[in-house]
């Protein structure tokens, strides 16, 4: 290669590198919509958990069907004492945080379709929807294997499945089971309660879904530790 074309070659390579570097530096890992709604959801879920627990401990027994109380058979008796009293303010704050969650969730849903966040970041590739692929990702994580550079910059198949399940399955289920316990709402849509088996079934399922959400949060935090906890948190704040 002549000296002139070699120089040109080096220049082209370094330009491409600069371009690539500029690309990764200016394209955020998470778009603003995801970052802002993520933290608002975190705060509201925290508020809902605290107030929800306050309501639960005033009667820590779960039933099935329409009715249940002290003196009737229960599904589960949680191993905590009856702490009646704080529930007066737990209820209104529970619904305050529920509104924050619902309005933020709607913003995220609509915004994610508009910005194509769902399509670009969470859509599942057909090639990925194979058991050996899914099991492979899970076993890698169980062995605490850190992902490689390019794999780390996009959601893997298990992440996509999980996030989609939580956004389109778990949160709507929590909302449905919650609304099924509202006499105002069920007077207009009684099916919300009857489809689940009744008022107490809705209550039990509401609690079950919340436990599933907690399991998701625990695994989510563990995986952040695998990817670098503070780095991940920073990325979710600044992009």
């Amino acid at each position, binding site marked *: 290669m002549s000296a002139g074309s070699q120089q040109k070659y080096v220049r082209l390579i370094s330009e491409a590198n600069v371009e690539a570097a500029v690309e990764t530096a200016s394209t955020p890992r998470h778009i603003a919509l995801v970052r802002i709604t993520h933290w608002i959801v975190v705060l509201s879920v925290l508020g809902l958990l605290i107030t929800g627990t306050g*309501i639960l401990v005033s*009667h820590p027994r779960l039933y099935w069907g329409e009715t249940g109380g002290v003196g009737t058979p229960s599904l589960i008796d949680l191993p905590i004492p009856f702490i009646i009293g704080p529930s007066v303010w737990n209820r209104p704050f529970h619904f305050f945080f529920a509104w924050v969650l619902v309005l933020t969730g709607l913003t995220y849903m609509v915004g994610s379709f508009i910005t194509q966040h769902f399509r670009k970041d969470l859509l599942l590739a057909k090639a990925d929807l194979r058991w050996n692929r899914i099991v492979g990702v899970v076993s890698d994580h169980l062995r605490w294997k850190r992902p490689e550079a390019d794999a780390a910059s996009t959601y893997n198949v298990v992440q996509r499945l999980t996030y989609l399940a939580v956004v389109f399955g778990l949160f709507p289920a929590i909302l449905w089971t919650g609304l099924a316990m509202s006499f105002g709402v*069920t007077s207009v849509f009684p099916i919300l309660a009857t489809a689940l088996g009744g008022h107490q079934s809705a209550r039990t399922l509401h609690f079950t879904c919340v436990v599933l959400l907690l399991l998701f949060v625990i695994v989510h935090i563990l995986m952040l530790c695998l990817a670098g906890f503070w780095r991940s948190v920073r990325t979710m704040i600044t992009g």
Partner: protein
Amino acid sequence: MTKFLKRRQFITAGLATAASASGLGTAVYFADRYGLIPPDHTGIVGIGETLTYATQRLLTSGHSLAREFKRSDISKVPIVNGPHPTDEKYLALLADGFKNWRLSIEGLVARPVSFSLEEMRRLSAESHITLHACEQGWSYIAEWTGVRLATVLDLAGARPESRYVVFEPFANPNQSRTVVRALWESIDMADALHPQTLLAYGMNSEALPADHGAPVRLRLGRHLGWKNTKYLSRIVITDRRDLYRKGGGTWYGGI
């Protein structure tokens, strides 16, 4: 070029804020006119309460009915939430079958009236089998019999500018230190005129037991248990927004 864009963004942002603010202001004005703002709309909790009450009022504006059940669904154990009053006055009334008790309907009415238990029983009676659930989490199904509150309000001639119906019960220091121990409670006119809103004097084909609010309790189909005031002694119809509740917690019990 950047300076021009920045100014344009600033103007756009300013216009958007002004538009949202005036939009919100208009919404609040109309919400108030159509009775969609609850009396406890202040403070941070008030935001959630207003959103919940406004949404549910709009949703249930067609007199939607709470679910009703079959006779076979009636619970064998109607849970008692705290014992009845044990002061001399109440015990004397109880021993006497409430012969000396009268329920007075006062306030914004054309004809203030009062009823004895016998007189109430002679008014057109209605029964329904509905679910009663406490905010704590327990619930039971029972049949309540009584006279529709709407009938009583009609007899008393409630004025059109009425906003709330206030229920004053007998004091009950035996009730646990929770939201149920309100010194008085109230409902809006939509709930007051609702077909399932009863002044209930009967429960499961018997007279309302003392532990369940004898002689008469309020029975609402579409609210949590704590709104169903027991041991009624006086009903006051008002348009005042500051007399809605004397007790801890918030006002709307539809969720």
